[in-house]
């Protein structure tokens, strides 16, 4: 179509982005400027979810912080707690026993499976494939049950403790977990096939939001978006923390770099994680009690600093903890993966149609668990319309195009 004048339509999506980075900014505001259907400019606004966790951590004791950092992100709580606990262990010079290390990995991998299933379900919902969303959510409940058996709570596990974990498992629980994992594996394979073959999904995802290898590194992108563009970054493989040096696994890397590759990569990783969980359950070492006595843990922390990395479901998560010998940490710095992945990717939307914006956004895995609402403001008439993100993906086109496609 011939453009005679450029009309700016500010689309502002308010999205609770990233359980991954709830610490600092979550419901996030993306302001999308569009020319007709084509996105020309994107601005990111933040601060709706800033809870001041870093300051809060400086005011609470080291042990109380273990539970506070778990509440940075509900979906990745065990990896947050694990990262912080390992930083404390580095400062103290404690090493947990092998059984505890294996159990930690088990909890983190279960979390990765349910997180990847959740974001794939949300993607199915965003592109209007509601029955697939319901099916994936139904099968995700099995993993939640497994988490409940292992840690005692469905979502927030509070499973990590300095020097080990907070609960042990017995043979009965082990068998229950294996049964649940076997059932889930079957279903995950099926869903992967659906994502590979279904026309609806292929048409909406393939070649949408392509990002190249150079851009990935320039913009400090991490996790599945980086691996889907052919960059092999995986803190599990490089740092070999906990039992990741003993449990066999492959780092999945894809070359395409589009939204579809990112979603398929998540299914591949979920399958990989299920295999790891099964390996752990079958080869669980029994070298002593993995549960430390919390009454006897050291109360005093020597001065020192530690920087730990962990591979969260959404990418590399880092913690920096500094102790100055007092009962409270001097500085705790949390850098969550969505922090990089969301704020730094504003340029990827350019050139795509408005209906693709939610698809690209979800493919970064910002965990859109709830309210997604969009204000569409038409500058020519001053008319304002609020719509659901899903509506925008499906019907938004209907609302916009008649006016500008002439």
């Amino acid at each position, binding site marked *: 179509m011939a453009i005679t004048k450029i009309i700016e339509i500010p689309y502002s999506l308010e999205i609770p982005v990233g359980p991954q980075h709830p610490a600092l900014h979550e419901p996030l505001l993306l302001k999308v400027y569009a020319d007709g259907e084509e996105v020309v400019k994107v601005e990111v606004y933040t601060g709706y979810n800033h809870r001041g966790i870093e300051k809060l951590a400086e005011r609470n004791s080291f042990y109380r912080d273990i539970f506070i950092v778990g509440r940075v992100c509900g979906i990745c709580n065990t990896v947050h707690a694990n990262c912080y606990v390992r930083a404390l262990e580095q400062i103290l010079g404690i090493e947990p026993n092998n059984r505890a290390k294996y159990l930690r990995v088990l909890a983190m991998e279960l979390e990765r499976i349910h997180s990847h299933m959740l974001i794939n379900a949300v993607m199915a919902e965003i592109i209007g494939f509601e029955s697939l969303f319901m099916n994936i959510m139904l099968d995700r409940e099995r993993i939640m049950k497994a988490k409940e058996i292992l840690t*005692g709570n469905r979502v927030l596990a509070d499973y990590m403790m300095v020097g080990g974990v907070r609960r042990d498992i017995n043979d009965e629980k082990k068998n229950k977990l294996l049964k649940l994992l076997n059932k889930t594996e079957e279903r995950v394979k099926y869903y992967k096939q659906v994502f590979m073959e279904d026309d609806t999904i292929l048409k909406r995802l393939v070649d949408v939001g392509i990002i190249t290898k150079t851009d990935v590194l320039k913009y400090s992108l991490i996790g599945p978006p980086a691996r889907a563009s052919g960059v092999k970054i995986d803190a599990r493989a490089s740092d070999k923390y906990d039992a990741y040096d003993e449990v066999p696994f492959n780092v999945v890397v894809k070359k395409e770099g589009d939204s579809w590759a990112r979603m398929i990569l998540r299914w591949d990783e979920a399958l990989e994680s299920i295999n790891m969980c099964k390996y752990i359950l079958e080869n669980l070492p029994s070298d002593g009690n993995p549960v430390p006595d919390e009454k006897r843990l050291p109360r005093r922390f020597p001065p020192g600093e530690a920087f730990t990395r962990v591979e969260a479901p959404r990418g590399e998560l880092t913690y920096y903890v500094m102790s100055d010998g007092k009962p409270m940490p001097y500085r705790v710095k949390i850098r969550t993966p969505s922090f990089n992945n969301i704020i730094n990717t504003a340029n990827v939307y350019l050139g795509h149609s408005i209906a693709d914006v939610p698809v690209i956004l979800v493919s970064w895995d910002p965990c859109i668990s709830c309210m997604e609402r969009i204000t569409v403001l038409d500058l020519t008439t001053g008319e304002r319309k609020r719509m659901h993100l899903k509506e925008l993906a499906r019907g938004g086109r209907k609302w916009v195009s008649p006016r500008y496609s002439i």
Partner: protein
Amino acid sequence: MGKPKILDLILRNLLSKPSTIEYPKKETVIEPDARGRHYADLNKCIGCSLCSIECPADAIKMTPIPPEYEAPKRNPRKLYPVINYLRCIYCYRCIAVCPTNAYVSTNEYRLATTETIYSDMLSLSTLPKKTG
């Protein structure tokens, strides 16, 4: 996917039961050691207030035992922990640090209320009342 596969799928779906749990008519299966409501057993509590110091959410307040209840001798300061269930995050840190293992844990999760609920009545019910 070919057509015969779809037929197979339809048949299987027609014959299978719905997956919905008829809650609240039918109870769901909850692990017996799931983290639910917990309270202090005052026969064991020594009133040391360690749980109140360690609570990440500051949900536990040490309160004097009311005079109509017989305070046990092992509790010289006559204090007992009262948990604010609305603020409690059910991390069970208090249970782990308690020096006398005085906490009783349950898997009760149906706690929806219209006002703030505390653990005081549950805790005090473990103590005998003074006679006369």
